[in-house]
């Protein structure tokens, strides 16, 4: 179980682990906090995964108003073995941005996981739209999770500060060391200022990393391409769904006016169309968050490779202080190597999961569509049209209980026959349908389904056949026995009951 292994990890790693909360157990929402609204959000238990001693989650976006501006905050929850954490904190996008910057500055050799992008000017218009906020929430979650799982970055001080500082103090803590000059100084110190321009020097392509660089580049383009395609696919799917709803409306209007078998077929069409439309409506969001991030991550790694190459070029071209540069070069190469070997397989798995999700969704859509249309087919085909071909009103009146009795030779139905005397010609259709409730389930399974909808001829038929079938129906209600041989008689009633239900 995950809990056991992570507690084992606990003991090994941290001598001074303070079990503030039993970390591997649920993140109890009972901790009363000032922001009572957070309790309203569903809290899924935060469980650490196997092999990790930290778990983070970003969810529950909420709009907050301050005096100057309105913004969205996200609830960040963390469960960690290394330090005590408050049950949750609220962070906004800017905080995430700061964290990213500081991480990048503090660990220049390591590619920091990328953030979801800022708003473009157009998106400013709908920055509170639920879809956008949800996508961003997922993206931030992915970001924070990749930081948490990163072997180096997870121990960074900034990360800890980010997760543990209570909301009000966060600005002070984070902002205090955050002067742009400082950051720039740090990164340049590590990579050397002027020498970082390889344009003039020889372009050295280390074979070890050039293959990786190429791979990352194509991977990046593929991922962004995949994301764009999936977005288009979803949009196209929604458009199709709208049109299918339109067809359903048309079919319904037509079925009301048409008569006979035609109406049945039309109604079937409508049903099929609506069934096909329904499953496409939901928006898949995770891929929209995750794929661009992965692409950006690949890009970030690519950048690091390029920086390393620059350094290498400088090393090869320049003649100064070779030792220092060489050390730095080695550091960079080593960092990159470990990073890539770690990141690439994990990313592959993640891509695979995402693709499978997409495929699953499509499979679900098409399965539902297929079922809908098959049901429609059943609704509209009838195979005993002969029965109703030339029924006229006189034929209905000719039917009498005595004639019905002839059709039911079995003795146990005699009792039912007595009831049939009371079954008058103008019995309410409703009665029939109620009696048929028990047959509803069989409708969908029977192969010889037939549908006659809303035509006078058929209602007459039903009335007449009601007498025929009464015995069958009553036996159904009594003993739940399906008379297989008289299946054909049962069908019109079944489907007429469908009319009442729909």
């Amino acid at each position, binding site marked *: 179980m995950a809990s056991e292994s992570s507690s084992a990890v606990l003991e090994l790693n941290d001598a001074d682990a303070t079990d503030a909360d039993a970390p591997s157990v649920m993140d109890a929402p009972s901790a009363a906090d000032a922001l009572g609204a957070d309790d309203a959000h569903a809290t899924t238990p935060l469980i650490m995964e196997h092999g990790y001693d930290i778990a983070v989650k970003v969810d529950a976006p909420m709009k907050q108003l301050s005096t100057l501006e309105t913004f969205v905050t996200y609830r960040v929850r963390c469960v960690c073995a290394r330090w005590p954490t408050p049950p949750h904190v609220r962070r906004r996008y800017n905080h995430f941005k700061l964290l990213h910057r500081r991480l990048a500055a503090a660990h220049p050799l390591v590619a920091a996981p990328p953030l979801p992008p800022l708003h473009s000017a157009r998106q400013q218009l709908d920055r509170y739209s639920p879809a956008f906020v949800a996508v961003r929430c997922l993206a931030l979650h992915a970001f924070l999770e990749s930081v948490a799982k990163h072997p180096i970055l997870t121990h960074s001080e900034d990360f800890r500060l980010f997760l543990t500082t209570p909301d009000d103090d966060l600005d002070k803590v984070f902002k205090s060391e955050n002067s742009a000059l400082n950051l720039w100084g740090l990164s340049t110190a590590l990579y050397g200022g002027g020498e970082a321009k390889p344009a003039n020097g020889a372009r050295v392509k280390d074979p070890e990393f050039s293959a990786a660089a190429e791979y990352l580049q194509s991977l990046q383009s593929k991922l962004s391409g995949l994301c764009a395609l999936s977005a288009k696919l979803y949009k196209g799917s929604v458009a199709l769904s709208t049109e299918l709803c339109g067809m359903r409306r048309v079919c319904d209007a037509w079925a009301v006016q048409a008569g006979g078998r035609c109406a049945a*077929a039309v109604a079937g069409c409508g049903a099929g169309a609506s069934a096909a439309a329904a499953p496409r409506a939901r928006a898949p969001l995770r891929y929209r968050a995750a794929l661009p991030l992965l692409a950006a991550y690949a890009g970030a790694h690519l950048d690091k490779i390029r920086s390393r190459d620059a350094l290498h070029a400088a090393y090869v071209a320049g003649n100064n202080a070779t030792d220092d540069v060489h050390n730095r070069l080695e550091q960079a190469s080593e960092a990159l190597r470990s990073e890539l070997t770690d990141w690439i397989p994990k990313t592959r798995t993640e891509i695979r999961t995402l693709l499978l999700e997409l495929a699953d969704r499509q499979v679900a859509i098409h399965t539902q569509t297929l079922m809908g249309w098959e049901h429609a087919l059943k609704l509209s085909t009838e195979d005993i049209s002969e029965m109703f071909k030339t029924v006229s009103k006189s034929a209905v009146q000719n039917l009498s209980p005595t004639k019905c009795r002839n059709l039911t030779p079995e003795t146990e139905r005699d009792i039912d026959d007595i009831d049939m005397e009371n079954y008058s010609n103008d019995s309410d259709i409703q009665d029939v349908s109620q009696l048929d409730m028990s047959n509803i389930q069989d409708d969908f399974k029977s192969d010889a389904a037939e549908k006659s909808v809303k035509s006078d001829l058929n209602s007459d038929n039903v009335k007449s056949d009601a007498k025929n079938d009464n015995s069958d129906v009553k036996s159904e209600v009594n003993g739940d026995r399906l008379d297989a041989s008289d299946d054909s008689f049962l069908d019109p009633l079944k489907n007429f009951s469908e009319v009442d239900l729909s």
Partner: protein
Amino acid sequence: MSTEDSPIKLSRSPTKIETVEDFESQDTLLKHVDISIVESEKRANGTLHVRDHYTVYLIDLKVTDPDYKMVQSKISTIWRRYTEFEQIHDYLQVTYPHVVIPPLPEKRVLYAWRKSDTTDPEFVERRRAGLENFLLRVASHPRLCFDDQFINFLQQEHGWRETITDSGYLLQAENKLKSLSVSIRLKKPDAEIEGVKTYGKQLETNLGNFLYTRSKIIEKNYALCKLHANYGKLFSEWSVIEKEMGDGLQKAGHYFDSIADSIESVAEDEEQLADQLKEYLFYAAALQQLCANHEALQRALENAHDALNNRIAERNRAAAGKSGLMSRLFGTTDPDIVRDQSTRALDAKILADRDNIEKAKRDLEDFTRKTSVEIEYFQKQKDKDLHESLVGFITLQVKAAKKNLQAWTQIKECLQNMP
């Protein structure tokens, strides 16, 4: 419009057709010959302008009944173009106003969802099928199939155009149009005919809506499926750079391509079904035409009645001696001679009027009798045909959904088998 007025006398008057059963048991041309349109060809009027190109269709006639003497030769073929079909159709409309005339396939492309015009080979093929269907329907209708002009249409190589224009149907058609353009307001409309007319309008609207939404759906679906081709491309390119995932991606890419291709055949099949529905769209219009004809006859009867009433009133006035303008102005009465003369003249006219009424009544009854059978037969046919078409549509959707599902299941499998 009685049979004496029609330009061509019916070659053989069908035996009394009282009910739908009689209808179905009647002899038709189709029981003795096989008709089909086998191919189409492009021809030009000499110039090479695109506008002067037209398509002709080859009608193939095979006599299956060895003893059938009506048709000239055993096997005959003839080339006809769409306008000639239109001519025979209009002729039939004028000559048999009590029959629901089978419609022609569309003249221009209706409910188009991709750019196409009447010269598209696909459209020509569909039109060929539609024209064949038209011929078969006419040939299976007991009242229409033995018409001389129709038989000539099927066989007469030369000079058919002259023959048909000689029949003067054009003039009749124009007259009819003029009379119908005045909206007919009857004093006592026939309830049944009104019902049929309303039904026809409803059917037209419903079918129109259905065809419109269908074209929208296939348009969106087509675009969506073609999108999958991009997926296929992406995946194949990607599989090149990946090592372990490569195989899975490649296979998935193939399935994506198959999705993109599968929509073509679905679109074609759906188009054929749409053509069947379009036929009934036009049929609904023909049904309304029939109702209009009936109304015209009713109108004629009402007019005749009105004429009679006016005449009687006039005669009474004449008998009272107040026929002239002078009497109205000055109140004088006519001298006896004038009175007698005018009265007698008017009496004669009254007799003529009464005859007119009788004739109009007979026409109307005749028409109504024939029409009711026609309408009943049409309803039966329509019910069956529409049901068939719609079931075909649903079946096609089922097939398409199955194909999609299969492809995506395969894709999922490929992805799952990736390391």
